[in-house]
């Protein structure tokens, strides 16, 4: 074997003589292998050599074969040595060397087990050595480590330009007693990239870090199916090393992608742990589908536990907490991400790949000579509380003046606030005035003549200026601890890790812990057979404020969420007049939903507990049938279960609302009471006792199995790679929910239910429990052929056949073939390319192909569902089956044809790299809703009717413009990326409602972006009452908008809701032991709907924006302001419609203002995402502590919004404040510690 290897080096040497550096590296590489065998065999150091007229190299190779010593030399030196004629029998090695080298200009040095051959310095002027022995010779010692800080043994360290070399010991240490002061050391080892370091002053101790070779950007593309030579791969991909994307203190790996990759947009619609960010790769591709990229972890597709579309991620509903499928991965276990962007890159994923693919590679074990490398990493993070200076909320004094105005306008009078659904201080004021203590003959609050009692009462609140952020938020501690152990020999390699994360929560309502465990073993059973086994598990325990699902109200144009107690929304929406504690320091209660309410009490008594268990076991076998033909099989099983328990305790507001039965007025209004159709008396209570214990459960079990056959061979200048695979996936999901009604938390868990609760739910068509299952099955056959000619021309062809059960038993559209062709031209390998110092490499790529998506319709056969009939009397109801959708035998998959042209350019010896990509997409057969004649029984159907065009441009420049040769010198790495993505719906035969288009998430309309944001056209304030007017759906000035109208011609198009231009700018400078990095992200081109804060009437609980100070107060103000008035009671009840003169509720007019062109902001922002400062402790100090490496870092995340639209008034441009469990991304600061043992 050794000879073959050696011979191979020899051959290479002759073929490309212009690249001696590479040869040297290879020689060293192979000799290291050779030297490893020495210790194993312990051969004698005597040699027997008989050679006649042979090159001196022949003698060396023979000696090497017999002794196992490595020989280090420069071949050009040997050319002058001539031939040798020797005959030696069993002589010591050194004697043999002396014999052979006598009479030549060569000398030898033995360093450990290496023989370094060098030329003897000749003392004449023409051949003077570059440095004389006397000139400033210094001693250098140091340690060589990997990127985790673990020492690397057996690294060859050679003084550049000489034959002087040593190798590192088991602790990675090396030492040169005396080398030239200006020498450059070359470090190389198997599996690592070679590194050159210039040594500096005398007696220097240096620490050298070698990068693992597979990390090298240009070498290998990880597709999840194959690890391919980049020469053979022609698609558009970006690889992101975890080390570069690391954001200490951010436990969810999906956020590591922010701003790092051109064309990948990450929108943090919620910052709550477990809620996925809205990730888009090259923009949206479907009108009705999820538009989420596919996550592939270690070659296995990671299925989501619940399918939440990209848009639904922003609802704040409790199921968004399980929206991030990768939240169970520990960031410390990630090795790298590969983003597959164009059709050629994603072709192997066929019908799942229309929205791009993110391939995650986790860490694996390495050959450590059996030594255990242990790493610990700890992050300690604290959050900054939000504060009112960021927002535009009225102080309590301002708020009180508005309240007084409202009182003057006829609101907040005793009659109206006595029994309100929601009541604040005025409710309290009047009720105290009526609260008579007969025994003492006093009133709780005296309604005296000079209003002194009243004024004192109100003054306390006017002066309160409650800081809700202070009350509800904490500067809490988020801690993460991760330990990993890597060990291995050449036969087996292990990686074990475990992590623990605990976050006490940003607010008093949330808390989360996560435990992960990960084991990965690779065993080389024989040269042909390799087995790999993986197991990982994660457990999550999370607490969140209790929440119900958000509901849309298209009638008035509003969203609502019953009993929303999201601390962030509460802080922003609750008047600063309200106080959490009364004068005595006891919790102070106001009224919500006709029942007492205190937010602190509610957060304690109404909360969600989420528990999640996620286990994956995976195995792979690789068998080399022939050296160039490999058969492999991969299989995985994953099981995940989440249980969400909603604790609604007896004294929570939510449970109390079911029992709010104080007087006839409340009884008639309270919607949680039950109006029995069989009994025409007053409504009755259905929850007389206790609260709720509601359970929601989601389970997924996922099987994955794949057979692969790969052929890889190089014939002269032809490289061929053929890959075929058969894949099967089966996913079963189950969801389950149960209303545990009448649970007595305080009474030993007694369950006391009332039959009326069930009668009500039966009649209302709202079952008290439910269970659903679905099955997702895929079968696919794929084939990929790659060919490269002479390292210059590459061609790829990929085809895949996907089958799915989505269409049920119908055979129609079960299978979809996809294909792709692509090519690349490595111009730098052409003879005419004179790769200068400035322009050093160039590669052109082009791909064209078809990818598909199963789409959001499954009615190739008619689809039926069951429901209970909508009838008022229990004995008349019966289960019904209804046709949910008629059969559509023409139904097929959504498809995209994509053309991508890209180039990879290298400058300054490839120290600076530029990648550009341009693409154009024709997206067709999109599932959309169409109007029909209705005769078949369905007046609007889903069919493959939509068309969309998209195009984009991506640009990345990265590199190290400044790189000191000294190991501790100044180094600067920079990366700037940006991407433009534009799309337009070119056909969509559907009539959306006004409500669908004006809401914050936007809607789909032909001729506009995939999700366009539209506004009702504001047309000034009414002169008489300051209420807003619009151009209505008929194009007429009006103060009423029919939100459900399909006439949308008079809406104003603002722009897309997705950013058009996104990017990031990353910089890192290293100097001595310090490293400083910063990431700035930016995006522009999208529009944002401002929070809906205007209303026809306001109660005394809600906060108001400072904008309200500028509101219309008297006629004439409409020329000065566009902020609507507070309508007085009389004008509100006699509000007439401008266009018809009929009486209409002002709710329409005021709600429409929230969706008008007055309530729009641009989504542009520049954000300082991360700043990190690290310090690598000096080696001698680390060694004294008994460690091998230690690094401390200070990291700030989400530090500042450097630029955003002023009209956002503090609102985060990425965050949708929809209440529920949604929380913005906090500002946070992290202390991070990494230790190597």
């Amino acid at each position, binding site marked *: 074997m050794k000879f073959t290897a050696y011979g191979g080096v020899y051959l290479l040497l002759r073929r490309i003589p212009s690249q001696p550096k590479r040869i040297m590296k290879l020689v060293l590489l192979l000799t290291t292998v050779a030297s490893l065998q020495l210790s194993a065999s312990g051969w004698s150091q005597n040699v027997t050599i008989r050679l006649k007229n042979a090159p001196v190299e022949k003698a060396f190779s023979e000696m090497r074969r017999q002794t196992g010593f490595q020989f280090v030399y420069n071949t050009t030196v040997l050319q002058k040595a001539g031939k040798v004629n020797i005959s030696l029998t069993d002589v010591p090695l050194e004697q043999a060397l002396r014999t052979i080298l006598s009479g030549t200009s060569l000398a030898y040095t033995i360093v450990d087990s290496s023989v370094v051959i060098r030329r003897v310095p000749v003392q004449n002027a023409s051949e003077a050595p570059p440095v004389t022995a006397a000139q400033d010779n210094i001693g250098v010692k140091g340690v060589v480590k990997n990127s985790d800080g673990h020492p690397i043994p057996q690294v060859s360290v050679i003084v550049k330009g000489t034959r002087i070399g040593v190798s590192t010991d088991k602790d990675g240490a090396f030492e040169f007693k005396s080398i030239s002061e200006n020498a450059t050391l070359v470090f190389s080892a198997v599996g690592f990239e070679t590194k050159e370091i210039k040594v500096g002053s005398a007696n220097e101790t240096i620490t050298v870090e070698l990068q693992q070779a597979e990390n090298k950007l240009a070498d290998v593309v990880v597709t999840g199916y194959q690890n391919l030579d980049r020469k053979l791969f022609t698609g558009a991909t970006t690889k992101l090393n975890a080390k570069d994307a690391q954001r200490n203190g951010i436990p969810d790996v999906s956020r590591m992608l922010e701003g790092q990759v051109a064309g990948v947009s990450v929108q943090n619609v919620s910052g709550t742990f477990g809620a996925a960010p809205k990730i888009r790769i090259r923009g949206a591709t479907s009108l009705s589908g999820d538009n989420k990229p596919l996550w592939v972890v270690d070659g296995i597709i990671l299925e989501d536990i619940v399918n939440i579309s990209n848009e639904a991620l922003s609802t704040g509903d409790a199921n968004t907490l399980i929206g991030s499928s990768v939240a169970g991965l520990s960031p410390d276990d990630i090795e790298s991400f590969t983003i597959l962007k164009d059709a050629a890159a994603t072709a192997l994923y066929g019908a799942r790949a229309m929205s791009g693919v993110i391939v995650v590679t986790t860490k694996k074990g390495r050959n450590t000579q059996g030594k255990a490398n242990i790493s610990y990493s700890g992050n300690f993070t604290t959050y900054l509380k939000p504060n009112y200076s960021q927002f535009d909320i009225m102080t309590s004094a301002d708020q009180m003046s508005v309240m007084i105005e409202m009182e003057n306008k006829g609101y907040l009078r005793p009659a109206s606030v006595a029994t309100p659904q929601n009541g604040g201080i005025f409710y309290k004021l009047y009720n105290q005035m009526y609260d008579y203590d007969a025994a003492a003959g006093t009133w709780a609050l005296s309604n005296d003549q000079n209003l002194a009692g009243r004024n004192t009462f109100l003054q306390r609140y006017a002066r309160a200026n409650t800081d809700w952020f202070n009350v509800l938020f904490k500067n809490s501690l988020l801690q993460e601890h991760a330990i990993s152990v890597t060990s291995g020999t050449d036969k087996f390699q292990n990686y074990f890790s475990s992590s623990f994360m605990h976050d006490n929560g940003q607010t008093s309502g949330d808390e989360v812990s996560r435990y992960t465990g990960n084991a990965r073993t690779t065993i080389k059973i024989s040269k042909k057979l390799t087995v790999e086994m993986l197991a990982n598990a994660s457990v999550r325990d999370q607490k969140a404020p209790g929440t119900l699902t958000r509901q849309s109200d298209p009638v008035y144009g509003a969203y609502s969420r019953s009993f929303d107690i999201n601390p962030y929304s509460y802080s922003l929406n609750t008047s600063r007049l309200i106080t959490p504690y009364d004068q005595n320091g006891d919790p102070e209660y106001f009224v919500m939903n006709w029942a007492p309410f205190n937010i602190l009490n509610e957060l304690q008594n109404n909360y969600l507990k989420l528990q999640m268990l996620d286990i994956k076991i995976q195995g792979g076998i690789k068998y080399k049938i022939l050296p160039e033909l490999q058969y492999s099989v991969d299989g995985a099983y994953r099981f995940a279960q989440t249980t969400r328990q909603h604790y609604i305790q007896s004294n929570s507001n939510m449970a109390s609302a079911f029992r709010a039965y104080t007087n006839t007025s409340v009884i008639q209004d309270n919607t949680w009471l039950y109006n029995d*159709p069989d009994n025409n008396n007053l409504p009755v209570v259905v929850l007389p006792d206790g609260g709720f214990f509601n359970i929601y459960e989601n389970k997924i079990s996922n099987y994955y199995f794949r057979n692969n056959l790969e052929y890889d061979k190089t014939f002269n200048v032809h490289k061929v790679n053929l890959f075929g695979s*058969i894949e099967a996936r089966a996913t079963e999901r189950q969801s389950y929910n149960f209303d545990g009604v009448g649970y007595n938390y305080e009474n030993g868990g007694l369950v006391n239910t009332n039959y009326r609760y069930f009668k009500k739910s039966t009649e209302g068509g709202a079952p008290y429990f439910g269970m659903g299952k679905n*099955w997702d099955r895929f079968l696919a056959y794929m084939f990929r052929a790659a060919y490269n000619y002479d390292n210059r021309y590459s061609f790829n062809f990929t085809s895949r056949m996907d089958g799915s059960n989505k269409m049920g038993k119908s055979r129609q559209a079960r299978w979809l073939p996809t294909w792709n062709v692509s090519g690349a031209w490595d111009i730098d390998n052409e003879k005419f390319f004179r790769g200068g110092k400035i322009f050093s490499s160039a590669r052109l790529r082009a791909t064209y192909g078809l990818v598909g998506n199963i789409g959001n319709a499954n009615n190739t056969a008619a689809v039926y569902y069951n429901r209970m009939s909508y009838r008022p009397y229990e004995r008349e109801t019966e289960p019904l089956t209804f046709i949910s959708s008629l059969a559509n035998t*023409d139904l097929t998959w959504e498809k995209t044809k994509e053309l991508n042209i890209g180039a990879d350019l290298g400058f300054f010896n490839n120290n600076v790299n530029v990648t550009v990509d341009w693409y154009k997409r024709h997206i067709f057969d999109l599932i959309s809703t169409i109007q029909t004649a209705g005769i078949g029984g369905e*007046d609007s159907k889903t069919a493959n009717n939509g068309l969309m065009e998209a195009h984009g441009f991506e640009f990345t420049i990265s590199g190290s413009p400044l790189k000191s040769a000294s190991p501790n010198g100044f180094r600067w790495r920079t990366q700037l990326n940006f991407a433009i993505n534009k799309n337009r719906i070119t056909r969509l035969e559907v009539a959306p409602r006004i409500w669908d288009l004006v809401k914050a998430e936007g809607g789909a309309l032909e001729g506009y972006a995939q999700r366009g944001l539209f506004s009702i056209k504001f047309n000034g304030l009414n002169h008489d009452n300051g209420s807003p007017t619009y151009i209505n759906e008929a194009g007429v000035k009006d103060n009423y908008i029919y939100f459900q109208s399909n006439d949308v011609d008079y809406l104003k198009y603002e722009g897309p809701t997705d950013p058009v231009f996104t990017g990031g700018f990353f910089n890192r400078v290293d100097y001595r032991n310090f490293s400083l990095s910063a990431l700035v992200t930016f995006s522009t081109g999208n529009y944002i709907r401002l929070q809906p804060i205007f209303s026809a009437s306001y109660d005394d609980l809600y906060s108001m924006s400072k904008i309200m100070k500028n509101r219309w107060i008297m006629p004439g103000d409409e020329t000065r302001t566009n902020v609507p008035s507070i309508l007085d009671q009389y004008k509100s009840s006699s509000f007439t419609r401008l266009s018809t003169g009929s009486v209409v509720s002002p709710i329409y007019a005021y709600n429409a203002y929230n969706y008008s062109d007055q309530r729009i902001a641009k989504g542009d922002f520049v954000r300082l995402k991360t700043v990190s400062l690290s310090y690598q402790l000096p080696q001698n100090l680390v060694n004294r502590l008994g460690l091998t490496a230690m690094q401390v870092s200070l990291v700030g995340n989400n530090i500042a919004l450097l630029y955003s639209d002023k009209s956002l008034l503090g609102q985060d441009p990425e965050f949708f404040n929809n209440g529920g469990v949604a929380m913005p991304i906090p500002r946070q600061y992290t202390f991070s510690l990494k230790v190597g043992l």
Partner: protein
Amino acid sequence: MKDIRLLILTVSVISLGSCKKSFLEKEPDNRTEINTVEKVAQLLGTAYPHYGYLAMAEMYSDNACDKGPNVANTHTSTPYPEMYNWEVVSDNGNNTPIQYWNGVYEGIAAANQALESIEQYKLGAAANPYKGEALLARAYGHFMLVTFFAKAYVPGGPNDSPGIPYVLEPETVAIKKYTRGTVASVYKQIEKDIEDGLPLLTGGTWDVPAYHFTPAAAHAFASRFYLFKGEWQKVIDHANQVFPGGDFTGNIRNVVAETPPLSADEYQQWYNKGDKKFNLLLHETYSVYQRSSSYGRSRFGLGPTIYAGYYTKSSPAGTAFYNRAYISGTGNYLLYKFYEFFYYTNVNAGTGYPYIMLPLLTSDEALMNRAEAYARLAQPDKAIADCNLMASTRISGYTQASYGVTAAKSKAYFNVTDDQQAIILTVLDFKRRAFMTEGLRWFDILRNRIPVSHDYLDANGDVTYKELGPDDNRRMFQIPPAAQALSNLEPNPR
């Protein structure tokens, strides 16, 4: 070695290849398949029109009038003014013809699917009652459509004007072309479905019979159908089979005996409850027609001209019918015959679906169908007896002596000389009164080619009139534009 390689390849290819058929045939979710008798029965719960025709029928008929611009709190919201003017309603929202068209075909689709499943899964004799129900539901839907959207059937006439598409099988493509056929061909198919379906219903059982085509409901429907066809004996035969022995006594709405003590809510519910013998077929119907904001406060609708000028006035029996009405501001009348069941989708926001349990067929109608048929067949005594049964349940303090219907009283009331004509007019008058706001008047207008006159008041109270003659093309509601465009249906002439 070679063998091992071969084995691996073979096993892997076969293991994946062989299971592919059943592997991908798993249904993706808990969807129902219609493959048993029980499931067919459950599907038929949705084989009836999901939307109602009340506004269409009432606003076109002479039950509507103009309240004028001076009545407070009226609205002129679509579709009421358009329908009062017999114009095309382009909106497809509540109470519009397009909505009704879609709702009826939705029911027909369920019926056709039920029929197909019975065939496909060979469900046999056990499925017979449901096959019968499906045929009747299909016939009912098409009958209602052809009545509203095509020219009225003329007994003995050619009836060769376009009908409406008669759908006999489930639609399986996104866009399908249909033809209208003729009124005659549609009637022929309706008759076939009725005649095929009726015998199959015998012995059927339903959990909630009031919401399904029971034999009684089917005979009531058949009596309506043959009334349109002018086959009088068949009308009588079918009406006689609604109740054993053809006896309607105690089986029709006894308004005077039962409703006076009822509260407003109870009164509304009384009309639409499934346990009332007079409700032969109910269906939960999405509707806002019952709200004061709809017909109640529409400027065009049940105004003083109809209410005070006819509804509360003396009938051919000699006195007014007992009735109840609620006045929503002066001049706006609501008869409170439909109880709204509001199905909440969001309790907090107060949003959901308004439903009424619409009586599609009542015994009162069947009785009156029989009365008219007797009159047409010159059996005046029997006709008068049926009218008297009706009168006894509508007139307070009814006695045969004081308020009994007689040919003489009717002749005097209508100022006609022919006995038969007088009795027929009495039947039609009784129906108009008894079924005010229930939509049945429009059917009698179509069937008997009664001209309709609509008044228009200006601010001064001056009146002008518009007429809708018996051959006016505007009697046909227009085919929905989508059906014209996408399925190539010819529009009705205007």
